[in-house]
Structure formats: structure tokens, C-alpha cells
């Protein structure tokens, strides 16, 4: 039996772990919330598996590397992890979109799979998963069904603000005007999609496009992006696992361009 190789993606909202052994599918994959103590969560996850080598990614990668001094830990950025993971799942991929808990990344891949260019949102979390979470709470809809809920709209209204705080006050004034909650939800989704499309244009998007990260679970965001781009998105079965998978693949020495 070959040695286990683990990839761990410590994000702002959740932590994912993928364990590979040889060339087959992951032998283990799990997702837990980050909580206020990400290290404790990592410790718990790592306690359940044995791995000869660990590759950490996500904003908590350095924290993890410092804690796991006794393990063979390498760190890579989310950009590289998502590029590797998406390319592995969809070898034809040319652009990767990852909307996570507090940032959005757009990665353009060269024909050989290497990262050609990337864009990330700046310091604020506008247009990310956090935005949707906040707005779902404001409309008292569970986050998991927020996309479905928005698809129940009967007209498209425009929400102009991308700032989470301003968008909420815009939504509040729409509610005060008697606007249907589903329509407001749709407007909020459209706001995210518009921002995402602008980022895609900035990197010079080429098809096909892989949509990964937690927000790829949201059916409304998926549908509206497809509608606006007039093309089918490639969506992994486990979109939030792509970073951890990419990290594990990196650990196997599967560097971009050498696949």
C-alpha cells in the first residue's frame, strides 16, 4: 500500500480534508465548520487519519504549518490549489471561478494547466459567500435553500450596492416598499453574479469554466451565471473540496503542466 497524502484547505467558513492514496479516488474526505478555533478543528480532523505528507492551503495554511511541526507539511496558496484540483477533475478547464466564504478568485489557466493570471477580491468580502449568508439571515431563509428561494421570484430588480452593509439597507428599503422577498433575494444574487462576471472579464475568461467553492452549491448563482455567459458551467460533485483535493494532488507531485 502506498503512503497516504492529505490536502487540507483551511478557509474562513469551513475546513476540508482530502486524503489520497495512489491514483484512485480520495480514500477519505470531510468538511467541518472553521469555528472560532480553527486549530482545534484541524487537530480533530488530522487525528482521524494517518498521512505521510500534508499540504495545507487556505487562509489558515501558515497557522496549520506552525502547529503541525511534527508532520511533513508544505503550504500552497488557494490559487494554486484550486487550479490543480479543477484541472484534475476537468482536464479541459481553461478558467476557474471559486467563490468561497470571504473571497472570490478567478484563475485563468494556460493550455498546459499552469496559472496564467488570477484576480482576487480586495480586503472586503463583498460578493462572496459571506454576503449571501448575511442576506439569507436578513430575509430569514436558511442559507442552504437561499438559491432555490430566489428562483421563486417573478421579476428582476436591481440591487446597486455590493457592500454587505449597504446592500442590507437597500434590501430593507425595498421591503418597506412592499417588494416581494423572493424578488429581493433574486436581486441580491444578481448583484453577486454581476460582480463575478466583471472579474471573469478582467482575466480574459476562456471556456470551459469550472465553478467551485462553497457558493457553487447555490442553484441560483449557478443558473444566472450560465444564463449570462450562455454556456454550461463545469461544476464538481463536491465544489468545496476542490482546494483540499488540489493540495493533496500537489503533495503527490502532480504539478501543473506535468500531468
Amino acid at each position, binding site marked *: 500500500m502506498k503512503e497516504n497524502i492529505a490536502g487540507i484547505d483551511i478557509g474562513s467558513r469551513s475546513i476540508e480534508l482530502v486524503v489520497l492514496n495512489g491514483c484512485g479516488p480520495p480514500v477519505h474526505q470531510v468538511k467541518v465548520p472553521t469555528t472560532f478555533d480553527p486549530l482545534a478543528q484541524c487537530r480533530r480532523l488530522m487525528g482521524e487519519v494517518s498521512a505521510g505528507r500534508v499540504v495545507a492551503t487556505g487562509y489558515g495554511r501558515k497557522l496549520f504549518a506552525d502547529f503541525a511541526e511534527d508532520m511533513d507539511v508544505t503550504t500552497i496558496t488557494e490559487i*494554486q490549489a484550486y487550479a490543480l484540483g479543477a484541472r484534475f477533475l476537468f482536464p479541459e478547464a481553461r478558467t476557474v471561478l471559486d467563490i468561497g466564504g470571504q473571497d472570490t478568485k478567478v484563475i485563468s489557466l494556460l493550455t498546459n494547466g499552469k*496559472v496564467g493570471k488570477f484576480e*482576487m477580491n480586495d*480586503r472586503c468580502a463583498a460578493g462572496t459567500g459571506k454576503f449571501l449568508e448575511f442576506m439569507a439571515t436578513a430575509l430569514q431563509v436558511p442559507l442552504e435553500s437561499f438559491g432555490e428561494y430566489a428562483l421563486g421570484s417573478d421579476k428582476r430588480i436591481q440591487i446597486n450596492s455590493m457592500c454587505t452593509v449597504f446592500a442590507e439597507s437597500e434590501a430593507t428599503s425595498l421591503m418597506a416598499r412592499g417588494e416581494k422577498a423572493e424578488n429581493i433575494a433574486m436581486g441580491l444574487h444578481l448583484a453577486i453574479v454581476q460582480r463575478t462576471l466583471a472579474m471573469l472579464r478582467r482575466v480574459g475568461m476562456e471556456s470551459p469554466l469550472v465553478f467551485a467553492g462553497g457558493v457553487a452549491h447555490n442553484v441560483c448563482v449557478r443558473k444566472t451565471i450560465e444564463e449570462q455567459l450562455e454556456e454550461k458551467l463545469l461544476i464538481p460533485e463536491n465544489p468545496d473540496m476542490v482546494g483540499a483535493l488540489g493540495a493533496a494532488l500537489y503533495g503527490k507531485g502532480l504539478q501543473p503542466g506535468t500531468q
Partner: protein
Amino acid sequence: MSTPHDAMWEKLNLDLDAHAGLLQVLGKFYGDIYMSQTGRLKGMEYLDFVLSEVHGLRIKELQDAKAQGKKVIGTFCVFVPEEIVLAADGVQVGLCAGAEAGKDAAEKVLPRNTCALIKSFVGFKLSRLCPFIESCDLVVGETTCDGKKKAYEIFADYAPVYVMEIPQMKNACDRELWRAEVLRFKDKVEEVTGKSIMAPRLREAIRLVNDRRKVLQRLNRLRAASPVPISGRDALLINQISFYDDPVRFTEKIGHLCDELEEQVNSGKGIVPKETPRLMLSGCPMAVPNWKLPYVIESSGAVIIGEESCIGTRNIRDLVDESGESLDDLLNAIVDRYMRIDCACFTPNMERMDNIVSMARDLKADGVIHYGLSFCQPYAIEAFKVEKALKAADIPMLSIETDYSMEDVEQLKTRVEAFVEMVR
């Protein structure tokens, strides 16, 4: 804690407590970013010393010069011709404006969405934190951008401000405007210093400033070596210090450092391994103590090999022709040299694109990081053209927009690390 300079600072009307706090933060910051480096050259000890005495011995020197009747002239921009100040036996100091201290005070008189550099110089003055500003007999502003231009109007309520008009294009009429501005500045300097500028002294001053430019050019050429013999942080510090140190002493000391660097290069030694990705910085100036982005870059597994910036090549690339006979010839040579500056305040400024591409090639850069200060429109807009020019030359570029605060350091690290992974 009291220091031997307290009396001097008090005389300069500094806010002593706040100033002590600033020096403490600066010292710690310097320790973390500079003293933590390994394998630094002996020649850098001079820079460590100069920086540790930035508000101490150097200010003492300025006070001594003033006691001898010399005038101190502060500047914020590489357009102000130092040759003219030196020819009138004055001392020119570049005012740094690279720290956030004083931001709250600045935001009382300036809009919040003003660039960090402008807020910094206004903030330092209002908070009485900068002994350089307090030592100045004249502070020279310039019209490089709307933010600075309008901020000097406000700054003039607090300091003896004089503003030079910088042309925005490079046609014959623009040169005429600039020539008139250089002559007006000469008159102003003569009035402030009480000295007449004559050809022999001006020629001597031109040589002196050219010598400093030449030694910095030499430093940059040495950085083309692989492995590179000096860190980008240290090279930036040298460029920063060149703005306020005594020019003769500085040139001599950096000459010695270059000798040492040359030995390293000849024996194939570097500050980092040969395969370390080589990145070049381009864009807005990084004033003392704005070492944030260089530190992020050099702790992400890359090394900086050049600064296409006012605190970098924009200040030293061109020399003033020394051959002129008459005062008029020499002044014209100054006018021409300064008109060649490729600041983003010019339009269409295509020479900057060419300069960036050839610099990246000469220094064998694996990529370029374009640095723009938030709200700096000229550089932010020009970043798109820079990217296009670099793309045509097959050199990757990452565009970063940030300010002096530390709140975005983690996000910056991710982007810079991803860029390093990309160019490796």
C-alpha cells in the same frame, strides 16, 4: 526614556511623547523587517546607523548647518532640482511621508479618500512628529497630481510652502513652462538663502548630484547578477536614505558597499539561492518606513531586484549634462534632464512603458509587481497600460493596490505567494 536629542526635539516643537512612541514603533518595525535578514553585508551597517539616527544625528547636522546660515529646503517629489538648492549652499531633504502616524489629524483637514502619502505628510505636520519638516525654511510642493496640488493649499496654513508647476505633456510649450518654473525656483532659492547662484557652483552641484545618481546606478547594475547580491528591502532602504542623507558622505559609503557587492557577484555569492524568483517593483514611491509590500514579497520566497519608482530608478536614471559653460547652459541642461522624468502625471507617457520593459529585461525579472497607492489615479490607470506592455514582452505582472495600514497583509500575502508560484 530620555535621549540626547530631547532638547533639540523640544526646541523644534515636536510632540515629545507621541514622537517617542513613533520612534519605538519604527525601531521595532525595522528590527522585524531588516535586522531579521541573514547574510547582510558589512556595508549595510552604515544604513542601519543612519536609519537609527534618522531623527537624531541627521537632524543635529541640519541644525548645525542652519546655525552656519545655511537654509534647509524640504521636498516631496523628484522634480525639484536639488542642484539649484546645493548651488545656493542650501541643504535639500526629501520629506518621507511613508507612515500612518498622524492619519487622524490629517483626516480633519483632508477627505478620507485621499492617498496615504498625502495624508502622511499633512498628518506628520499637524501632529508635530517630523523634525525634518520642522527644520525646513521652505517646503517645496509640486502639481504632480490633483491630490497633492490641493493638499498644498491646506498645508500652506501650517508650513512655508512654495509650489512648482509640473507640465503634463512633453511638447515644446511644456518645456518652456518647465524652464520658466526652474528659473522661478532659482529666484526663490536665491531669495530664501540670500545667495546668488553662479555657474561654477552650479556645475559643482550638478556633479555632486550626478555622482550620487551614478553610484545608485551602479548598485542597480549589480542587482542584475544571478544570484542577486542584495535584498530588495536593503536596496529600497538605500534609495530612501539617499533623499535625506548628506550627498557626499552617502555617495562614498554606497560606493564602498558596491565594492563589497561586486566581490560577492564575482565570487558567485548571493543573498538568496540562484533559483529564487526575481521580481521587479513598479509604480508609486515607497517612502520610509513603508516597507510593507517588499517585506511581504521577500517573505513569500521571492527577491526584489529593482524599483521602477520615484524612490528608485525614476530618480536616478538620467544624469544632467555637465559640459555647459554658462549659467544658462547649465540651467538648460537641468531643464532637459528633469523633463525626461516618466512620471504618470504625464500623458501619454509611453516612455515609461518602454523603460519598464527594458528594465525588466536588463534585470532578468521573472515578473513585475505593480504597486499603486489607493486613490492614486495616475498610477492606477497607468497600471493597465503597463500590464499590456509587459504582456507583449511576455513578462507576467501582478497589480497591487494598497496603503500604509496592515489590515490587508494576509490577503496581500496570498496574492503575492500565488504570483510567486505562478512565475516560479
